[in-house]
């Protein structure tokens, strides 16, 4: 028995694993270091030469990450707003005013069993939520959030948007068919019929707008609306905006057009058999869709990131740190301490049971928050894109609120009424809108 053999024999199982893993990890690290040293400059040059590619990857990641807080916020908003409309309290257990409830919901959904029913088509069943979710995330790529802040600026962005938006119905149909459940099947077929019917008035309602603007790039459309509030397209295309909003509601399967998941009729529609994170993806996609159609309504008809009025107090922050001289040192040394004490002292005085160190910690946190708030305020008045982003989200959430409001107020329409409304009312109205717009453009051009 060699020395190596006896040592190996005395090791515990984790020790054995570590003994194997350590050399491998060391070798890998050295290899990685070598690769970075040798290929690093080449990679940097490559990335520098292919900036659009880098931009796309960064944008896609950012958009993917944006969906999480968006969905959480809208879910919380829906729970709370509908609760107030129902004269309930709504979520109030987790976090302040229950605001962490959607996060906890997310964790719960992750921890749940991922169940596939017997008889389901496993592959299609697994991929359906992915298709639905990706379709909504990909639509986010073209939305201009602020001046210069967008994923990609196509000249056919609007067309891309409708094409990708229509893709989600494939996912719903997949889910409905693969679940091996008749309620799911009904839900999937309903969504197919509904989404395809409402695609037509949805698309036709913006054609008038495209004629007016002469472009399909969302960025250009927003730039066209800059100026005063009267330049927004909603004042030039009121009928188009109305049709767009109604058709978009149906497109996102929201009340009163939520036949796809009508819980009093077909249980949960296409999502009946889904559980765990697969259901979570459907849920996410639904709320991201709400955000997207609100964002698109704002972009197309309500001025995008343009402010409805000019900021009345022009604040020019022109402070040169160098001019302060020695006072800069005093500022840096004294202000944090003084600020912390300023916030901590009243707490310590008011609460006799609070130890001094805790009061100081709280005071420090409050001071930092105050600095961040002041900084954000300065940024708001100093940077274009921050102002644009703020206005964009403000307007978008007004529309999100409208959707939530409709959910709390309206009953559901029937499938034949839904179809009649699409084909007999919305389609002729959107054609009329298109005709009148085209006529006006021709007459005014002469």
């Amino acid at each position: 028995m060699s020395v190596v053999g006896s040592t190996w024999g005395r090791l515990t199982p984790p020790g054995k694993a570590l003994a194997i893993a350590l050399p491998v990890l060391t070798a890998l690290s050295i290899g990685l270091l070598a690769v970075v040293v040798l290929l690093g400059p080449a990679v940097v040059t490559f990335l520098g030469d292919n900036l659009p590619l880098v931009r796309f990857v960064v944008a896609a990641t950012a958009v993917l990450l944006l969906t999480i807080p968006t969905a959480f916020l809208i879910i919380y908003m829906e729970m709370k707003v509908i609760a107030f409309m129902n004269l309930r309290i709504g979520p109030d257990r987790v976090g302040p005013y229950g605001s962490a409830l959607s996060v906890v919901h997310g964790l719960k959904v992750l921890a749940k069993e991922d169940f596939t029913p017997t008889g389901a088509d496993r592959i299609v069943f697994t991929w359906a939520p992915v298709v639905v979710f990706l379709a909504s995330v990909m639509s986010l790529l073209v939305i201009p959030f602020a001046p210069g802040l967008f994923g990609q600026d196509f000249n056919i962005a609007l067309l891309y948007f409708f094409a990708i938006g229509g893709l989600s119905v494939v996912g719903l149909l997949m889910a409905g068919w693969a679940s091996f459940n008749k309620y799911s099947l009904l839900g999937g077929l309903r969504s197919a019929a509904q989404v395809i019917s409402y695609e037509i008035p949805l698309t036709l309602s913006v054609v008038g707008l495209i004629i007016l603007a002469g472009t399909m790039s969302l960025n250009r459309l927003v730039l066209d609306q800059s100026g005063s509030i009267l330049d927004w397209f909603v004042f030039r295309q009121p009928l188009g905006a109305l049709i767009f909003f109604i058709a978009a509601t149906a497109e996102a399967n929201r009340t009163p057009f939520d036949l796809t998941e009508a819980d009093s009729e077909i249980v949960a529609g296409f999502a009946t058999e889904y559980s765990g994170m697969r259901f979570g993806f459907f849920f996410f996609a639904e709320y991201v869709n709400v955000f997207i159609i609100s964002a698109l309504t704002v972009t197309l008809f309500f001025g995008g990131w343009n402010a409805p009025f000019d900021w009345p107090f022009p604040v020019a922050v022109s402070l040169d740190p160098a001019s302060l001289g020695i006072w800069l040192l005093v500022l840096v040394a004294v202000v944090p301490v003084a600020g912390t004490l300023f916030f901590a002292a009243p707490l310590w005085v008011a609460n006799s049971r609070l130890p001094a160190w805790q009061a100081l910690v709280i005071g420090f946190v409050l001071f930092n928050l105050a600095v961040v708030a002041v900084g954000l305020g300065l940024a708001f008045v100093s940077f274009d894109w921050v102002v644009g982003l703020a206005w964009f989200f403000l307007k978008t959430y007004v529309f999100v609120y409208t959707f939530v409001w409709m959910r709390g107020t309206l009953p559901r329409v029937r499938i034949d009424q839904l179809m009649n409304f699409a084909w007999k009312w919305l389609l002729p109205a959107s054609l009329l809108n298109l005709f009148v717009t085209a006529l006006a453009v021709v007459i005014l051009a002469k």
Partner: protein
Amino acid sequence: MPTRHEPAAPYEIPAHPSADDPRVTLEEQLGVFEPIPPYPPRTEREAEFYTLRDGEMFINMGPQHPSTHGVLRVVLKLNGEQVVDLDPVLGYLHRGVEKLCENADFHQAICYMDPLEYVSSLFCEWPAVIAFEKLLDVQVPRRAEYIRVLSTELNRVASHALFMGWMALDLGGLTPILYSFIERDEIVEMLAALTGQRMLFNYFRIGGVNGDLNHEFMSRLGDWMSRATEQIEANLTLLNENEIFVRRMRGLGVLDRETALRMAVSGPNLRASGVPFDVRRAHPYSVFPELEFDIPTRQEGDCLARYLLRMDEIRQSLRIIDQCLHEMPDGPVMARVPRLLRARPGRAFAAVEGPRGLYGVHAISDGTDQPFRMRIHDPSFVNLQLVPLLMPGNLVADTMAIMASLDPIMGGIDK
């Protein structure tokens, strides 16, 4: 859809398999997919129903479904979204109430009547109590009769208010159910102050009621009555003027006068078809001859008429409550009744007008202290027979609306 699965590999089931043998239960679970009964069809109707033509499929609505009222299972035969045929399957809530009553004495039998209609319990106690009083020749004090009318009319308002919310919920509206629960909760709380229970009151006794009106009940009632009309009208404007709601209900599930009479329908469903039949007027009982109220009727016979008629009934109930409060006489609330009751041999039938129709009890006594036989006539059961008449030809979404407009309560149907 795929058909029944074959077992993946042949295996031996032991001669006497245990009930929790996983292999055995797996096979049973796979069989659940088929709504077709495992036995050969017993009747012609069953054979016809369980034969699928091209493009048709079965779907099980219930017993666990978000919007069947209670545990009712309806096997729907669908062609696309259209209901071709359907078969209600009852019995999931069967408790054998009639048999239980035969093994209880007359006092105990009353408390078995409460869970029949868990939304309006007092109406189920009433016919039983009247029937027993007839058998025992008991005279009820007038104050007790007034209290009975007062409490039952309150219960009717609670039931109809809840109906409004259910109706909207089955059509997809989330909010009205919570608004109508406010009304119901106020009434239920004041009845709890009167009877001691929120849901299954067990308040009526043979010869009177369990307790006189107390201060808490009266103060709650006065509080509520001062704003009831206003509040209910305000709730109604939420729904009655909603275009989607009205368009979905109008012309849906039309029940004509002849069919309604032929099917022995009673209550608001009958009056919505134009027949002004109300037990309170047709076969007066208690103090109803002295009270002033109208019997609202509507001619259309559709879901909207049934809904609006119930809302009219709420207004009439408020009128009756008002009169009861004004004309309530003084006196005892309980007749002098011996503790051990021995009824004369014979039979008695009593019927009252409940929020769902005619509640009847036919009690037979053989001279002992227990009813020899009790037959309970429940209006929900009779009204549920309309479902196969009204639903075929409509869409899946409408089955819920029609079911809600008939307002069945499964506790009474399965007994």
